[in-house]
């Protein structure tokens, strides 16, 4: 009775540990790798005074353990330091850009999931037929294509050739649907295949299961068999793939925002990297790591919720 609840708490605990590990990893990557960060960031032409000032600002003149303790304590208080370039708090820089990314990623996920389920079911119900072969082949091809190259081809067609859609946001509002179409299309096209192939596999397996064969023999209509038995059985295994798709979208968001000049956290991350704004890079990295962990946790919790139902009704 209490097992699902206990499993959920354990998963949340594991996610908490993962967040701790992520913060250590981000700190280690930005502060503990070979080379003096201040010298590398400022380049060979920097004066000794400039290097000393940046070392003091980054805290690299103090022992690593002490720096990490300070950084982690700040993290707990929600203080990630200040941007080296703008001087504004890192947290403010992140939240300022979050809305655009949530809108872009959320829209892309909202389009991807039903589309992938539709294609997966369509292909899975006709394994080996042309519709299956074409959709599986196209999915395999497109899921490997680099997002920026895919985006450029779409821009070439819809902006340059046909003139239907804007090539970049160009400072315009993301709430203008036309601005969002191409960035969302790139994310959807590049992630659709991963999910639709998993749904297809789940549907093929569920469709051939003894349980479904038995229901057909009992004379249930094909619609009932499909909607009440094949679909739930086929979609449940694809949930884990949804976590991977979300991870892929996180990387995709960075590239897509950079390509289409969208004012989100992905473009902000790229800019922070270009300006070598170390505290901001740490902040963005933590934000992306935390998002990965939270998405995986949510998928785990939903999967755990679905599993007992399937066990009770084989």
């Amino acid at each position, binding site marked *: 009775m209490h097992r699902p609840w206990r499993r959920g708490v354990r998963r949340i605990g594991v996610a908490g540990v*993962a967040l701790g*590990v*992520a913060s250590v*990893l*981000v700190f280690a*990557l*930005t*502060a503990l*790798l070979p*080379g003096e*960060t201040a010298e*590398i*960031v400022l380049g060979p032409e920097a004066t000794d005074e400039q290097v000393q000032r940046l070392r003091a600002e980054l805290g690299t003149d103090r022992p690593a353990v002490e720096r990490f303790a300070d950084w982690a304590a700040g993290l707990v208080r929600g203080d990630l330091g200040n941007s080296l370039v703008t001087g504004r708090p890192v947290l403010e820089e992140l939240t300022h850009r979050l809305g655009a990314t949530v809108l872009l990623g959320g829209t892309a996920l909202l389009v991807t999931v039903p589309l992938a389920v539709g294609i997966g079911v369509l292909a899975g119900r006709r394994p080996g037929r042309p519709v299956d*072969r074409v959709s*599986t*082949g196209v999915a*395999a*091809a*497109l*899921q*490997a*294509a*680099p*997002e*920026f*190259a*895919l985006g*450029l*081809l779409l*821009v*070439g067609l819809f902006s*340059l050739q046909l003139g239907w859609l804007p*090539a970049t946001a160009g400072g315009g509002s993301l709430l203008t649907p036309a601005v969002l179409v191409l960035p969302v299309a790139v994310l959807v096209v590049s992630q659709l295949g991963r999910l639709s192939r998993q749904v297809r596999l789940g549907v093929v397996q569920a469709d051939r299961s003894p349980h479904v064969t038995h229901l057909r023999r009992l004379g249930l209509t094909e619609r009932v068999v499909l909607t009440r038995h094949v679909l739930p059985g086929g979609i449940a295994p694809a949930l884990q793939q949804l976590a991977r798709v979300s*991870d*892929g979208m*996180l*990387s995709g968001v*960075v*590239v897509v925002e*950079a*390509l289409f000049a969208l004012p989100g956290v992905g473009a902000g*991350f*790229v800019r*922070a*990297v*270009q300006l*070598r*704004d*170390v505290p901001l*890079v*740490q902040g963005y*990295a933590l934000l*992306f*790591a935390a998002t*990965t*962990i939270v998405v995986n946790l949510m998928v785990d919790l939903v999967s755990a919720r679905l599993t007992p139902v399937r066990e009770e009704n084989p």
Partner: protein
Amino acid sequence: MTALALLLVGVPLVLALAGPLLAPLLAPDAEPSPLRPPGPVHLLGTDALGRDVLQLALTGGTTVVLLTAGALALTYLAGVPLGLALAATSHRGLAALSQRALDMLLILPSLLLLMVLAGTGRRGIGWLLAAAAVVQLPAVVRLVRGAAAAPARRVALETMMLSGEPWWRIHLLETGRFVSGAVLVDAGTRAALVLTLLASANFLGIGLPPDVVDWAVVIEQNTASLFLAPAALLVPAGLLISLAAGTNLLVDRVADRTGAVT
């Protein structure tokens, strides 16, 4: 579908490998100027830096192929022995702990790991190759460990142990030979992943230096000229898509025919 996959891989691969040999045959331009439209001297026009787009297409693929091959080679050179050692060790707890430690690298998506390194000045070919290889390690080690510990292998291993064969011959050489099929299929799938990762890093300006001619670097240098010199972006973009998509499609078809799982 297999013929299409071969065509998609073949064209950019031949260009990448033979292109640098063909490029010098193009007539040199005495007065190169930027953003020229396609014409008799420059069949695909010139880019924002005044370089011939056809020449860039012929020479920019070598780095893509070599970097991908290099990162993959590093991954398997480190991952296969590590996976075999973890599969062979009698300290199960140590093996599981090592795998968990490696999995921690997956907390940050691969591209973002490269960005964090670049953001603190760790950029260049060495860092790019090392980081691209390291982020593939957890999956490769897991695959090799799993393949090496397959039940079908146990009888052969026990026979070799009883006949007094040395540890390295049993667990590294013979088991290594046994897992080579799974590793080869994995390498095919991973090639497209690594290619896309490295190309994305180069597009974002955190990979190769700007003076290197590379399809993704050329795209990054010409993004502002899309409407003035579209070929400078669309030709390398098309070649990158063709190579990555074709590779994945080809591996998918081969795996489908042989029944291997990708």
